[in-house]
């Protein structure tokens, strides 16, 4: 295997995260400064200590978006866009910037201002193509998983609805404990079940992640320097990423009950990170819950349960905060919304808080490992990322 990974070669020395929300009164500048200010204070650094920046955003323009806000002194800023994995990609590439020895200190920062566009949902940029592909949005695309999953595993409509409602209930219940979340209110299960359908009979509005503005950032150094800087850095175990070849879109055999790219990469990512049993060895698990059916499929794709058991485990509360394998304990995309470029780094921020005992009412007992997963695209063709971090070396 030529891909060796970067286990324990680099570490995070400071993180910051803005409040996520419908921040109509907040500019790009405000969002960036909110997150960057927190991270610099956390790392006890000056902005001038940072040698290079990787800036992720789906909609923003080039590196000057960040350099002008921060008045950077002619520093390199690489703007990263890789769909919903943009944040994870900024983090991954920033890690390589220090792992290569090219830079001593780097920042990965993701920022997205979605609420200024006046649209509902996350509109994707137009492509100058023949436009013969049917126009559909994220909810419709991901809702194709519902009949696929039910057919494959013989799950009734009633059971899958129950399992999906539980995902939304769980994530809102977690978000209720997170002061940085867009939605900070527990929503009764009955209300979730009664939500209006947007892709009848498969997906209700409560099965969809929210839409928000937000910014999150991480300061990264080589592991050795990080250790001399602070006693409790967060070590990077793997930053895996794949872009799918599209064969699931072109060839028969794909069953519409799995995120193919994630399923394809999970085992290798765990191996690189030294995880042999993800169900017991992962503590802070943040996965891309763009839709509740996505999260159910991801339990299986990320090997957190057996194939065909995700729906049942969801109903049984396995992934609840007090369950056996808590998932999206910070509230997930469901509670945070999905400011595309920022989400991947926001997910890592939860591990950062948990490792440092700063997760407030969500605080887990001595968590040591964290996972952030993203996917960008559709279940049959996407980019997907798995980032694993640890509190300790080894």
């Amino acid at each position, binding site marked *: 295997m030529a891909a060796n990974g970067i286990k324990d070669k680099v570490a995070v020395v400071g993180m910051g995260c803005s409040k996520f929300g419908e921040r109509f009164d907040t500019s790009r500048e405000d969002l960036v400064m909110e997150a960057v200010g927190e991270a610099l204070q956390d790392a006890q650094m000056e902005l001038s200590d940072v040698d290079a920046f990787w800036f992720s955003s789906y909609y923003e323009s080039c590196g000057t978006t960040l350099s002008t806000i921060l008045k950077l002194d002619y520093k390199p800023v690489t703007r990263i866009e890789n769909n919903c994995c943009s944040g994870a990609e900024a983090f991954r590439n920033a890690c390589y910037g220090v792992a290569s020895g090219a830079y001593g200190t780097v920042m990965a920062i993701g920022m997205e201002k979605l609420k200024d566009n006046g649209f509902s*949902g996350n509109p994707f940029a137009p492509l*100058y193509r023949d*436009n013969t592909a049917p126009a*559909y949005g994220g909810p419709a695309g991901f809702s194709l998983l519902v009949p696929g999953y039910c057919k494959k595993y013989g799950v009734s409509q009633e059971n899958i609805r129950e399992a999906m409602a539980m995902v939304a209930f769980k994530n809102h219940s977690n978000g209720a404990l997170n002061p940085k979340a867009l939605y900070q209110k527990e929503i009764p299960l009955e209300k979730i079940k009664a939500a209006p359908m947007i*892709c009848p009979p498969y997906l209700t509005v409560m099965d969809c992640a929210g839409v928000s503005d937000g910014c999150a950032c991480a300061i990264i150094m080589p592991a050795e320097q990080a250790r001399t800087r602070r006693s409790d850095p967060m070590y990077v175990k793997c930053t895996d990423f794949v872009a799918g070849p599209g064969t699931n879109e072109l*060839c028969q055999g794909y069953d519409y009950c799995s995120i193919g790219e994630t399923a394809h990469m999970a085992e290798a990512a765990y191996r690189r990170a030294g995880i042999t049993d993800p169900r017991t060895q992962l503590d802070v698990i943040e996965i891309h819950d763009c839709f509740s059916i996505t999260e159910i499929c991801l339990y299986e794709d990320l090997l957190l349960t057996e194939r065909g058991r995700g729906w049942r485990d969801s109903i049984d509360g396995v992934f609840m905060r007090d369950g056996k394998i808590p998932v999206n304990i910070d509230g997930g995309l469901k509670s945070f919304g999905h400011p595309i470029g920022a989400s991947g780094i926001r997910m890592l921020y939860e591990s950062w808080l948990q490792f440092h005992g700063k997760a407030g009412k969500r605080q887990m007992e001595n968590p040591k490992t964290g996972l952030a997963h993203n996917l960008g695209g559709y279940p049959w063709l996407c980019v997907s990322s798995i980032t694993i971090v640890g509190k300790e070396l080894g």
Partner: protein
Amino acid sequence: MIGITAYSGYIPYNRLRADTVAADYGKKGKSEERAVAYYDEDSITMAAAAALQCLKLGEEQTVDGVLFATTTSPYLEKQGSATLAAALDVRRDVRLADFTDSLRAGSSALLAALDGAACGRTTVVAMSDCRMGGADGANETAFGDGAAAFTVGGGKVLAELLDSYSVGVDFPDQWRDRQDRIVRSWDVRYALTLGYEPLVKEAVAGFFQKTGLKPADFSRVILYAHEKRHQAALAAQLGFSQNQLQPCMYERIGNTGCAAAPLMLTAALETAAPGNRLLYIAYGEGCDVLAFRVTENNAAYRPAVSVQDQLKAGSDAMSYAKYLKWKQLLAFEPQKRPPQERSSLPDYFRNYKKNTAFYGSRCRKCGTPQFPPQRICAKCGAWDQMEPYRFYGRSARVKTFTLDGLSLSLDSPNNLVVIEFEGGGKLMTFLVDCEAEDIYVGMPVMPVFRKMFTENGISTYFWKVAPIHHGGEQ
């Protein structure tokens, strides 16, 4: 011998009841209905639906010309027959022409195709119309949308052309100027007494004098009329009995303009016995009379879906509001979504075989069909081992589906489906002409040529799927 060698009618799935419309205006309506093109159908797609039935797979290579007759082309400047030819996948060295601006455009095109047949050419001719009457007017439900198509040439003729006779007179009774969407007309007594009756009589008399034939020589007369009641009256004046008169079907599908008489002709051919003679009379700024003799070949010929079956299929559940919406007669709430981007014409043209004739590719090495066409095989990874592979005409089943209530649509929710083709290949597209509750995983469907959207004056055509029971190849 030259004549018609294939025929097919096309009636859209959706029917609007006249009493549904009347009720919304607080009136009592007739228990009649009209066919309504779906929001993704226009004269080109309906013509394609009919014309595709006229060619068995492989026969498209024998076609020398494609003619398109309509008074409702989506474009004032841009040839419909070119799109039709592309959808039919005929050769490039063909003659293309649009016949338009007259209700007689259908017979003009048919006559041109027959002239071509006399010179040894095989021509596909398609007639299609979707004219509109104004809201709350008689024409709103009297007009209908529909199409018919014929292959015309020598060889295995189903209906031999016996002779024809034409009269052309500048007689205006219905018209639209360049801005009009709604048909205007002069009063009906003028139209009947100075136009329809004398002009048709003149042409039919001329035909009988030329040929020596008489009404009794014909088993059926196909007689165009603006309204059903005028048809029966004139047929009697011409010396035909009610038994000879081919039903106009206006009370079921409406008057389909320049496709009306051709649709009657396809219906007549579906039941005609060998040896029967058919008299075809089209009207509009004059009159064309054509006579056909049905041959032995017609006994074995059956269109994939007959006009009779299409009359029975379909749904009359649509509301008047849907009609107004599909015809874009309402001012809509703007969507809180980015505007639809027009199609890139260079990219559309690069993918012309994919978009219009529904070509994918098949790997010569591993045999896997793929859509859209690829250069590197998605299955075995072979480079540049692809051959063209046409997906039109292949059966397919629904793999998974959803109803998309969010996306921009004139008939929300959209039925979004993933289909898998028998023999390999798959596609995500919309399922049309189907009630949402009737969709299931495993449902058999077939490709239909439709309009994805129109933006910046560019209509983007592509393939959707419909249930097997309605139109299509299978």
